[in-house]
């Protein structure tokens, strides 16, 4: 079978638009029809929102639909589902799981969150201690433990969850990956207020939560391998956003510079130009990575993009606060809100500055990512480590 061409895809897009004119079709209905036509993520298999087409052709579809005024699935609102849960379910899910979860995930009817980090397991995620014990008789799993920093847990319908199923094995073994119903009894979500004043992430307490074995993803004890798929996708999706020139964090700074000449100083000009250039180079680097992926030569640049993105966001938002002078002393609003959206660039400069501090922590800290680049890309030796072969239950805590 030869791969579908751009022209054939465009025909499908036009057929979809003809059968479901966006102007008189409900938003969710349109998105469901788009999924069923294989135009959701074209590189996914047929029947699962795709057509097995080259990934690069998605841009063709998106542009055509945007031009026709079709609704999108608010990718930023459902970023964890799209970026992390979906590729993992696609890679490890049973046929039933793929059929059950991928469509509502993509349409945005079911929001996902990620129950990975714990108070005792952040960078060292494999040290996690949330327990899942199999109930004899039903074969269900009973989960007890605590997760933390869980973005969107308050809006999520489902979670990807990793839990320990065998404490006698070394920490990377004995972990199992589950799909957890956030409405199940025993799941308690408490807002965790953050540096910006709002509560975009949460603590999640799991007490006797029952998960049927049909919601296990991958084999028992294989959870670390499954989680690595999620984490790899997380890094690419955080760093790999496609922006126009002067898009992203640099946009409001450049705008302020142009609109308010009174703010200009020579020292700020130098810093602005340097960051403008760096932002443009980062954009080109992300574009080059995208072209490599589309050409089927996945380069190691992916893990690096998130590092650049985090550093630049922090430096640029820091410059913005300074540039604003007296206005930089102000903050829009400290009310504790529970936003539906993880928003890096929204609101005012103070918010951007504070939220950007999380960019080098969430999704793997910059220190950990530098280790990954050094070891996997440059082939430098790993740190000496003494925890690899110890049973998890014997680790220092």
């Amino acid at each position: 079978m030869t791969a579908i061409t751009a022209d054939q895809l465009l025909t499908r897009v036009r057929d979809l638009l003809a059968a479901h004119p966006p102007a008189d079709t409900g938003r969710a209905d349109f998105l469901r029809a788009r999924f069923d036509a294989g135009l959701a993520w074209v590189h996914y298999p047929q029947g699962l929102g795709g057509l097995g087409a080259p990934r690069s052709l998605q841009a063709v579809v998106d542009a055509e639909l945007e031009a026709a005024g079709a609704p999108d699935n608010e990718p930023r609102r459902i970023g964890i589902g799209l970026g992390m849960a979906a590729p993992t379910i696609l890679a490890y899910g049973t046929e039933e799981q793929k059929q059950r979860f991928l469509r509502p995930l993509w349409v945005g009817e079911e929001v996902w969150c990620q129950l990975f980090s714990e108070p005792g397991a952040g960078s060292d995620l494999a040290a996690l201690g949330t327990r899942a014990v199999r109930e004899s008789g039903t074969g269900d799993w009973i989960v007890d433990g605590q997760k933390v920093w869980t973005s969107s847990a308050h809006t999520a319908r489902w979670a990807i969850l990793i839990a320990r199923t065998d404490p006698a094995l070394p920490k990377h073994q004995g972990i199992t990956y589950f799909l957890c119903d956030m409405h199940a009894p025993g799941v308690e979500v408490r807002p965790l207020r953050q540096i910006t004043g709002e509560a975009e992430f949460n603590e999640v307490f799991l007490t006797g939560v029952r998960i049927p074995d049909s919601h296990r993803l991958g084999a028992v004890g294989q959870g670390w391998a499954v989680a690595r798929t999620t984490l790899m996708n997380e890094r690419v999706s955080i760093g790999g956003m496609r922006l126009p020139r002067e898009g992203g964090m640099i946009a409001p700074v450049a705008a302020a510079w142009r609109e308010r000449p009174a703010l200009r100083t020579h020292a700020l000009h130098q810093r602005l130009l340097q960051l403008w250039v760096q932002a443009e180079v980062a954009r080109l680097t992300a574009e080059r990575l995208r072209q490599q992926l589309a050409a089927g030569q996945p380069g190691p640049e992916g893990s690096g993009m998130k590092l650049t993105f985090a550093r630049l966001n922090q430096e640029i938002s820091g410059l913005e606060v300074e540039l604003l002078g007296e206005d930089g002393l102000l903050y829009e609003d400290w009310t504790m809100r529970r936003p539906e959206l993880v928003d890096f660039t929204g609101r005012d400069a103070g918010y951007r500055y504070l939220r950007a501090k999380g960019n080098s922590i969430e999704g793997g800290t910059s220190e950990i990512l530098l280790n990954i680049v050094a070891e996997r890309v440059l082939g430098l030796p790993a740190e000496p480590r003494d925890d690899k072969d110890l049973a998890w239950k014997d680790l220092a805590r």
Partner: protein
Amino acid sequence: MSDAFDLLYSETEEELRSAVRALLADRCTPADVLARAETGRPHDPELWHTLAAEIGTAGLLVPEKLGGQGAGHREAAVVLEELGRAVAPVPYLTSAVLATEILLGLGCEVPEAAGLLGELAAGRQVCAPALPLTQAPGAPLPGAVRDTGGGVLTGTVTSVADAVAADVLLVLADTGLYAVPAAEVALTPLVPLDLTRPLATVTLEGAAGTRLADPATARAAVAGALLSGAGLLASEQVGLAEWCLTETVRHVRGRHQFNRPVGSFQALKHRLAQLWLDVASARAAARAAADALATGAPDAPLTVAVAQAYCSGVAVRAAEECVQLHGGIGMTWEHPAHLYLKRAKADSLALGTPGHHHALVADFAELPSP
């Protein structure tokens, strides 16, 4: 946003790279470069002949009907990456890029220019533009050379790169552009920071040249050539930085202190990971510049300024890290790290400093100074 630009390497470009790399691995090792540099005559004419004529790299920018390869800036950029990786002492940037682009900028109606282009493209002659190496695109052009009548030129140009290897110089005078045989000028070689790209002061005292263009055409052609030169220099800087990174990684993996490879210490791992990231970013910036020049994109001047503002710093830092992480060896004359540091630093002054290119970015992106 347009998808027209291509930041990858094509198969033909990779083949060209392999050919150039194989030649340099064979005939231009760091030991060779150092040995020649010490003689004060760094150029290797035989190496140049093979590179320029046999592999055909000198004519990449020249259309086939004028005797060239009819390729373009993307291909020339790949050659420059490899020349940077080898700190090769060949007049590629000066003759095959700058001088060639000036001549191309005159249009093919001038038979003398077309004839000289053919000679350069075939690698039969080397031509140096009589401009200071620091001459930047967008900066005022020097006006020190005067025509005292009938194409007899008088004046002095400082810091001219590769003039000692040139058969012909392209001289910008008040009355236009002239091709001047090397025999007509006096060269005073200077002691350069970069041992691999020799500099000289060019003195014309009643030198006779062939007038190729009027002042306006000449200035436009020179401005265009400086833009291309600056854009392609970014690729030389990427190749240079990549050599520094690769050699440093190799060294720290093998060098043991405290009973471990020094490359297993996180302080070094993080520095090298960051450097890798910078080199990967520099590559994207340099590719964008080469591609914009190749396609004549309207935003080419901005893309070139971005690449130059960025890549100079990366090359210098890569070379500085290379010296530092090699420890004492990195400070020795025998180890080639210094050749790279000297080239990187000189390159950061060549064709506009990062500061100059930042100022150009300010103009193009409409971010005015206070």
